[in-house]
């Protein structure tokens, strides 16, 4: 689903992502880990088409993110780390807006919106302006909008920030279910226990370079005396 080839992104003299090559097949739940400033969000934004690579290429579903961006974007959903939304729209209006942008059948998306709002216990707040929402409520609306057009790839940056425990569980279940149905999930997170719990494969990025890649067990085996993913993470990012 995602093919990243020799991807490099520079901001002036700073190398944010350095020669990253990565392949994520359909249905894989991939967790992307790294310290602050390692290059996670930059990579995610390049995959989502919000940043352009300095070198290298990104293909989503076989479409180049540079030359066939519109086709690629139809397959993607993106949940940013900070849920910036149109504060003067209601949650329901924002979801309708998303449905129209993606040209989804109106009856279908109306039904789906009510189902998703119900899942996240947001039906009662759906007609209130989002400027009155808490961070978690905005995050829920953004997650709903990401699920609306049935994407084949969900790119998600720190998905659990601001969510209550019930919603965290719900998001985990939804993402796992989607992954089982064939949707690729590319999730950047600092919550190592979450990655350990649900990811099929883990990649650790540090100073822009991918320094470790494999299943959680494979990664643990590569580092001595490591029982938890947290131990591995702390060791290999400290070594670098």
């Amino acid at each position, binding site marked *: 689903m995602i093919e990243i080839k020799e991807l490099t992104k520079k901001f002036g003299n700073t190398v944010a992502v350095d020669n990253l090559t990565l392949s994520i097949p359909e249905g894989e739940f991939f967790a992307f880990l790294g310290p602050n400033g390692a290059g996670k969000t930059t990579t995610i*934004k390049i995959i*989502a*088409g*919000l*940043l*352009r690579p300095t070198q290298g290429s990104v293909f989503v579903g076989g479409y180049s993110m540079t030359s066939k961006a*519109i*086709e690629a*974007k*139809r397959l*993607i959903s*993106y949940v*940013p780390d*900070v849920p*910036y*939304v*149109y504060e*003067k*729209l*209601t949650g*329901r*209006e924002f979801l*309708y*807006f*998303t449905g*129209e*942008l*993606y*040209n989804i059948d109106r009856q279908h998306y109306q039904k789906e919106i009510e189902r998703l709002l119900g899942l996240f216990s947001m039906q009662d707040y*759906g*007609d*209130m*302006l989002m400027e*009155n929402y808490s961070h978690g409520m905005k995050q829920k609306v953004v997650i709903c909008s990401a699920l609306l057009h049935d994407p084949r790839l969900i790119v998600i940056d720190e998905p659990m920030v601001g969510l209550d425990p019930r919603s965290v569980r719900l998001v985990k279940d939804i993402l796992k279910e989607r992954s089982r149905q064939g949707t690729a999930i590319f999730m950047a997170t600092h919550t190592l226990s979450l990655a350990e719990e649900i990811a099929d494969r883990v990649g650790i990025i540090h100073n822009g370079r991918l320094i470790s890649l494999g299943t959680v067990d494979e990664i643990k085996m590569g580092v001595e005396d490591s029982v938890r993913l947290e131990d591995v993470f702390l060791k290999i990012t400290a070594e670098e």
Partner: protein
Amino acid sequence: MDGLRAIAKSQVWMLRNNIARIKEEPMLKVSFILAFMCLFWIGALILFHRGFRFLNRFPFVGSILMDETIYLFFAALFVMLALSSVIVCYVTFYTSREVDFLFSKPIQDTVIFFYRFFQSVFFSSWAFLFLGVPFIIAYAIIKQVPFWFYVTIPFYFIPFLILPTALAALIILIFMSFLDFQKMKYVIIAIVLAVLAGIYWAYKINIRPAFSARTEIDFVMNELLQHLRFLRHPLFPGCWISRSIICSSVSRFRDAAFYFMSFAITTLFVLQIDWFIAQRAFFSGWAASRGGRKDRRYPVEKGIINRMAQMIAFLPRSTLAMVIKDIKIFLRDPGQWSQFLIYFSILGIYIFNLRNIPTEAVNPFWRVSITFLNLMATLLVLASLTVRFLFPLMSLEGNKIWVLGLAPITFRRLIFQKFVINLLGILLMSESLIYATNVILETSRSMTYVSCGIAGLASFGLVGLSIGLGSIYPNFKEDNTAKIVSGFGGTLNLIIALFYSIAMIGAFAAPVYSYEVQGSIPLRTFRSMKAIAWIITVAATVVVGVAPVLLGYRRLEQMEY
């Protein structure tokens, strides 16, 4: 004062960082911008100088006409500054996230208040300052004032820019302290309407029939002085600063000092009241704005906007969705629509008062001049309207731009949608306005056609310019439109829009004056010159209206979010 030093330092650091960023820009770009701004400033100076020279040439009354222009300029400026400051203060004091941050720190309320107050002064008045200085210099040159007069100009402007904002801040402080935050929009409407009704009333009661005038000069002076008498009302602060400038230009130092001190002391007095109320009520008003009623529901497919959207349901779905989104956001933001209300109320007063110009009593020179001045007024209104409301459109997508950046739509469609929808609205407004005013002024049919043609072309050019430059120079980090417009892109937009508007009229003014007023060219030459004027204006419109849109599209395509 607690926190004052920290805030001042942070501003100095921000200024330093901004200067450092400018230094990183290509030298050619910075030089071009500076040269362009200097050119604009010099152009404005030349224009004002010519205007004053024209007035000064009237035998016996030239000096009076110049002084009346000063009264009119400062009165209009004062009222406009006060009105716009009401909105800017409301947004700056109560809706900015920075105030949330500042209130979480151990800083005195009055420090936060005055920090935001002086930001409001800057954002609501920099453009007036930019135009006001060449205006006064032009006046001074024609009046042949001594050198020291030029040195005093900044001293006139400092209190003049502060007082309207201080009054606006006072109004907002009082209303926010004693009224429900949710009712603020009604307060803004009431203030705007009350001020405009006051202007109209003051203007209306001074109008006297002028048909008894014996000569042309008598007629003009009688009409003008009667109309503008209210500007010299002794209790109107705008009048004090005008009198001070006029008195100092003829070396009446005592009178000049008296009026200036009246203005300065009033400014300090109002600031003192602001300080007094801010100390007691700024925080409580701000807290009330955060704790108001928040449970109002907006059912998704009900309401007048959704019903009206049915009329444009033929548009592509994503385009229609973006149009509805833009309209809803605009109408739910009092800081946006209240300024729109001011524009249209002023336009209403303008149109209403055009009826008082007795067109049958004036000669061809005045008839043609009034027609062109009316056209100029319309284009300037369009220019300011497009700069104020259309330039920030792309920036207002702000940190939500990821929603559109991610959606399977091209930026070509996004820009095109904003361009076409706004063009339709502006076109409807400009053509209605120009046609109505030409009918009121009893303009000849050919001149009405020319006016409508120019207004149509200018609508296209000005909308394209603002949408295009707004896309080339977006500010996604700012949600205060006053700040967005006061940036480089907004300034450039204003400058080009003003030049373009003047050029559009200038292209037709020369042949029309030569033929209809002076009779110095035959009909054939007149027609040829008019044809050339059309070619020039169409070409200028294509350059001004299309090129920025194309460049804006390219810029958005290459932009990273």
